[in-house]
């Protein structure tokens, strides 16, 4: 049986779960490269199956800016990035200490891991999501993966012809509210009137899609900013995932700079808005004014979860440190030009001098 037939057969097996998932649309996307126009990847991704929410089905086969879940098939066990749990020698501790791992250390395994990571990066980068799920199917086994800005949780294999965990996952996902699926509900569509004003202020034409982003205000209220939809860049999901936007301040009706990121949630690193506040209180020059800042929503969904599972007795050990992150936004009063757009060598030198003065004071 060739690969196309394999995909076809497995697609219909997955498609049959639609009886239990009325809110999902399952599409065979194996022959269709991602048509997401907001993807700044040096290559095209082409997941085997794409799952959409019925209320946001884009009408095209593969679109990572709208996809809920990507499913990838592999036909050889050797392509599986994961294997049974086994002991490995800890590379950084002398004395022969062993730890548990389930990562397969072969080129084929690493290629698959890179492939499904690219899918996750495309989704998380071009959408506003706190987390996403994906499925990896290797022959008669499946794994469910949950990706957030701290890391990835991977299940043991599910023998989907014998156990109903995979069907049950899809049934629950279909019923789950958007936040539980990972959708960031603090990002909305702007009204028509808001969009017109934002396009004028930001000099954006009507082909650019817009989003309306909420930023907490210091007085416990919320401010709204309209910006162009983000572009996805090829970076792995864990990290601060900083996205900067020239944005239109709806209440003040002026352009500002807005930053969406996942701040490090550790005691000795302050939230950036607090740092700006302290720098201003110390009269530090050459630092912009922070208009508003704060954590987004509650930590139920807008804080990473993977980092909390690393010490569980069933968790395999990795050498990578899992850092907790908290979703955070701030708005600055200035949209600056990039340093690389300087108009003369004199301007570049003076700009660097200004910035270093800001750092020193």
């Amino acid at each position: 049986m060739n690969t196309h037939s394999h995909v076809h057969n497995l697609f219909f097996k997955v498609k049959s779960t639609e009886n239990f998932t009325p809110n999902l649309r399952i599409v065979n996307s194996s022959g269709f490269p991602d048509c997401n126009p907001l993807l700044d990847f040096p290559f095209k991704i082409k997941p085997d199956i794409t799952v959409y929410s019925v209320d946001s089905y884009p009408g095209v086969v593969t679109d990572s800016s709208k996809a809920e879940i990507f499913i990838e098939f592999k036909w050889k066990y050797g392509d599986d990035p994961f294997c049974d749990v086994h002991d490995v020698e800890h590379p950084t501790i002398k004395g022969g200490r062993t730890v548990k791992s389930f990562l397969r250390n072969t080129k084929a395994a690493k290629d698959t891991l890179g492939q499904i990571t690219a899918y996750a990066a495309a989704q998380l980068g071009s959408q506003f999501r706190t987390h996403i799920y994906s499925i990896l199917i290797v022959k008669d086994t499946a794994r469910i993966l949950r990706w957030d800005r701290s890391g990835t949780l991977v299940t043991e294999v599910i023998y989907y012809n014998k156990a109903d965990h995979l069907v049950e996952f899809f049934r629950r996902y279909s019923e789950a509210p958007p936040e539980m699926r990972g959708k960031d509900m603090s990002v909305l569509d702007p009204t028509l009137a808001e969009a017109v004003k934002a396009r004028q202020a930001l000099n954006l034409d009507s082909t650019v899609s817009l989003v309306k982003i909420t930023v907490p205000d210091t007085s416990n209220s919320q401010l709204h900013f309209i910006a162009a939809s983000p572009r996805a860049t090829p970076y792995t999901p864990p990290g601060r995932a900083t996205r900067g936007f020239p944005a239109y301040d709806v209440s003040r009706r002026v352009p500002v700079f807005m930053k969406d990121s996942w701040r490090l949630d550790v005691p000795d690193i302050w939230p950036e808005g607090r740092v700006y506040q302290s720098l201003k209180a110390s009269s530090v020059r050459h630092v912009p004014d922070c208009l508003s800042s704060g954590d987004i929503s509650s930590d139920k969904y807008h804080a990473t979860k993977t980092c909390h599972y690393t010490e569980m007795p069933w968790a395999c050990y990795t050498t990578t440190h899992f850092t907790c992150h908290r979703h955070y936004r701030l708005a600055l009063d200035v949209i600056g030009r990039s340093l690389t757009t300087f108009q003369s060598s004199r301007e570049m030198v003076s700009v660097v001098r200004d910035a270093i003065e800001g750092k020193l004071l």
Partner: protein
Amino acid sequence: MLLKASFCDMAETEAEYILLALMDAYNAGFLHRDFSPGNIIIGVDGKGLLIDWDLCKPLSGDSENVRTPRRATRTVRDNYKICILIPIPTNTGF
């Protein structure tokens, strides 16, 4: 400050002054920890502004931790090894 007064000479001994800048910043109570051309912007008045203070650490904290170097950013071409195994329950449902 000595460093500010000496900026006119910066081109001659850039490395020395950058080192001085890092030391002075440390003494001032904040460490930016992400100082790069990408974090300097040109404001409307043509002057430079230093942004992205989200890795900044106040130096009153754990000084050993402050010295911890930042990790490099990974691209999806790199091997991504951050995974944990969740056992699937056998009889309690998913």
